C-alpha cells in the first residue's frame, strides 16, 4: 500500500471500527442465542433427552399418555386468610384437568408406568390463571436441573442392550445422597388400580401471598377420597388402557374427589429444596375438594392444548426459587412449542408421520 495517502488510511481504520462494532454485536447475539453453547444444559437439550431420538409426533415429550378431565374445585375458603387468590375464596371454580402416566410413549401400558400425574388448569373470568402439575412422588430425587438431566440420562435404556445400565444407576444414586427421601418413597409405594385412588403432590413449594403481601411457603397434595381396591373384574391387568377404562367406569357411577391438602412450611424447612419431605406434623389445611365429573380422550379435547406449566400462578401465589420448579417453565415451553408445531403442520395436512 505504498500509494496510500494519510486520508485513505484513516478511512480504512474507520471501516475497521465499523466492522468490529457490527461483528461484536452479531457475535454477542449469536452467543446469547446459544449458537456457541456455553450455557450449560438448555431447555432444548432437556427435551431432546426426553425424546430420546424418538419424538412422538404431536404428543407431549413427557407424560405423553393421558386423558382429559372436566370438573370443579370447591374451595373451602380456609386458605383465604393466607392467599388473596380468588381460587381460594369460598366457592366453586371450574377446571380443565388431565390424568397421565410418566414417559414419552403415548401407547405405553398404563399399569407399567412408575409415576402417575394429575394436572389442573384454572381460568377465571377476571383473567386469573392457575396451573398445577402434580405427581405421585412427594419429592424430587435431585435438587437441580443439571442433576435431573443426569438422572434421566442414567435411567435411559442403553441402545445396545435395550436396558438402562444398572451400574451407572447405582453410581448415580451413590453420588447423590439427596435422593434418599425419593428412594424411601419408592420402596414403600405400591401403585393402585385407579387414577382415582392415588395421592398427587405439588412436589415443589410455592408461596401463598396474603393481603398484606406476606408470603407463606406451602406444598400441596391431592388426597383421594376413594380408597384403593382390587381392579374391577372385567378389566384385565394386561389391558394397555387399564387406568383409562377404570376411570371411565368409575365416573359412570359418581364423581371422583380429592381433598386439596395444603402443608405450611415452618422456619426449619427449605422451600427451595424439593428433595426433602416436610414432617407430617406440619400445619395442614384442607383448601377444598377437587371434583372430577367427566373424562374425555385427549386428542382434540380441551386439555390437549394446555401446557400445564406450574409457574402459571394467580395473584396471591408466587413461585419459590426452587431450581427444579423454575426449570420446569422453559422445558415445558420447549416441549409445548415442538408439539404445537406438529399439530399446526398436521392441521395443514403436512408431515403427519404416525
Amino acid at each position, binding site marked *: 500500500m505504498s500509494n496510500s495517502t494519510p486520508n485513505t488510511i484513516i478511512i480504512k481504520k474507520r471501516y475497521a471500527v465499523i466492522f468490529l462494532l457490527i461483528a461484536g454485536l452479531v457475535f454477542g447475539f449469536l452467543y446469547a442465542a*446459544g449458537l456457541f453453547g456455553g450455557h450449560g444444559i438448555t*431447555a432444548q437439550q432437556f427435551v431432546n433427552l426426553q425424546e430420546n431420538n424418538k419424538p412422538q409426533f404431536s404428543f407431549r415429550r413427557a407424560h405423553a399418555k393421558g386423558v382429559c378431565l372436566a370438573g370443579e374445585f370447591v374451595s373451602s375458603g380456609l386458605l383465604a386468610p393466607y392467599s388473596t387468590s380468588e381460587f381460594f375464596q369460598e366457592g366453586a371454580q371450574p377446571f380443565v384437568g388431565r390424568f397421565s402416566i410418566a414417559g414419552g410413549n403415548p401407547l405405553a401400558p398404563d399399569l407399567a408406568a412408575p409415576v402417575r400425574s394429575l394436572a389442573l388448569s384454572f381460568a377465571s373470568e377476571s383473567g386469573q390463571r392457575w396451573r398445577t402439575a402434580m405427581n405421585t412422588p412427594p419429592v424430587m430425587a435431585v435438587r437441580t436441573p443439571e442433576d435431573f438431566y443426569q438422572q434421566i440420562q442414567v435411567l435411559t435404556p442403553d441402545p445396545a442392550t435395550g436396558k438402562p445400565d444398572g451400574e451407572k444407576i447405582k453410581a448415580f444414586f451413590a453420588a447423590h445422597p439427596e435422593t434418599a427421601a425419593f428412594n424411601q418413597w419408592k420402596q414403600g409405594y405400591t401403585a393402585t388400580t385407579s387414577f382415582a385412588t392415588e395421592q398427587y403432590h405439588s412436589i415443589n413449594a410455592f408461596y401463598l401471598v396474603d393481603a398484606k403481601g406476606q408470603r407463606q411457603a406451602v406444598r400441596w397434595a391431592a388426597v383421594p377420597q376413594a380408597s384403593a381396591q382390587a381392579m374391577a373384574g372385567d378389566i384385565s391387568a394386561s389391558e394397555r388402557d387399564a387406568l383409562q377404562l377404570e376411570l371411565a367406569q368409575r365416573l359412570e357411577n359418581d364423581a371422583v374427589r380429592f381433598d386439596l391438602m395444603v402443608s405450611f412450611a415452618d422456619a426449619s424447612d427449605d422451600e427451595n429444596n424439593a428433595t426433602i419431605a416436610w414432617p407430617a406434623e406440619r400445619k395442614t389445611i384442607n383448601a377444598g375438594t377437587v371434583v372430577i365429573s367427566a373424562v374425555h380422550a385427549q386428542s382434540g379435547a380441551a386439555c390437549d392444548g394446555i401446557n400445564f406449566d406450574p409457574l402459571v400462578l394467580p395473584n396471591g401465589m408466587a413461585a419459590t426459587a426452587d431450581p427444579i420448579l*423454575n426449570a420446569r417453565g422453559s*422445558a415445558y415451553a420447549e416441549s409445548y412449542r415442538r408439539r404445537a408445531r406438529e399439530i*399446526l403442520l398436521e392441521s395443514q395436512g403436512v408431515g403427519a408421520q404416525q
Partner: protein
Amino acid sequence: MSNVKAFPTSAKLMHWLSAVLIISMLFLGVSMIQSLATWQNSAIKLHQSFGVLVLILVCVRLVNRLFIQTPALPSDLSAMQHFAAKATQVLLYVLMIALPISGWLMRNAAGLPVSFFGTFELPMLVSESIASYSLFREAHGIIAWSLFGVIVLHISAALHHGLIRQDSVLPSMLFKFRSPK
C-alpha cells in the same frame, strides 16, 4: 422538502429509548427460551411487560412523526441508497409493531393473558388454540431474528454515514453537547 437539520428532541429521546429497550429484549428473548436457570421465570414476566412498553412507545413515535419535521436525506445519495434508507425505516416500524403483537397473540393462544408488571392484564385477542399458538410462536421468533437483522443494517448504515461519508445523517439523531466557550 423540510429544511430542518436534525430530529426534534422528542424523536431523539424515543429513538434511543426504543433502541435500548428493543435490543435488550432481543438478547433477553433468545437467552431465556433456552435457560433452565431460576431467573428465567422473572425474565418472561419482564419480557412481557417491557414488550407492552415497546408497543406503546412505537405507537407514540408513529403519531409523533405526523407532527414533527424530519430532516431530509443528503441530496448526493443515489436513488438506490435513498430507497434503501426509506425501506429500512418502514421495515423497522413494521417489525417493531409486529414483534410485541405476535408475543401478545402467542400468550393468548396458549390461554394466558399478557400481564403488565402484575398491575393489569391486556385483553385476550384470540381464543385458546394450540395450532394458532404455534403460528404466533414461530412468527414471534422469525420476526425477532428479522428485526435484529434490520437493526444491524440500520446501525451499519448509520456508522457509514457518520464515519465514512461524514454527512448530516448521524448527527441528526445525536444529542449535541456543546461546551460553553
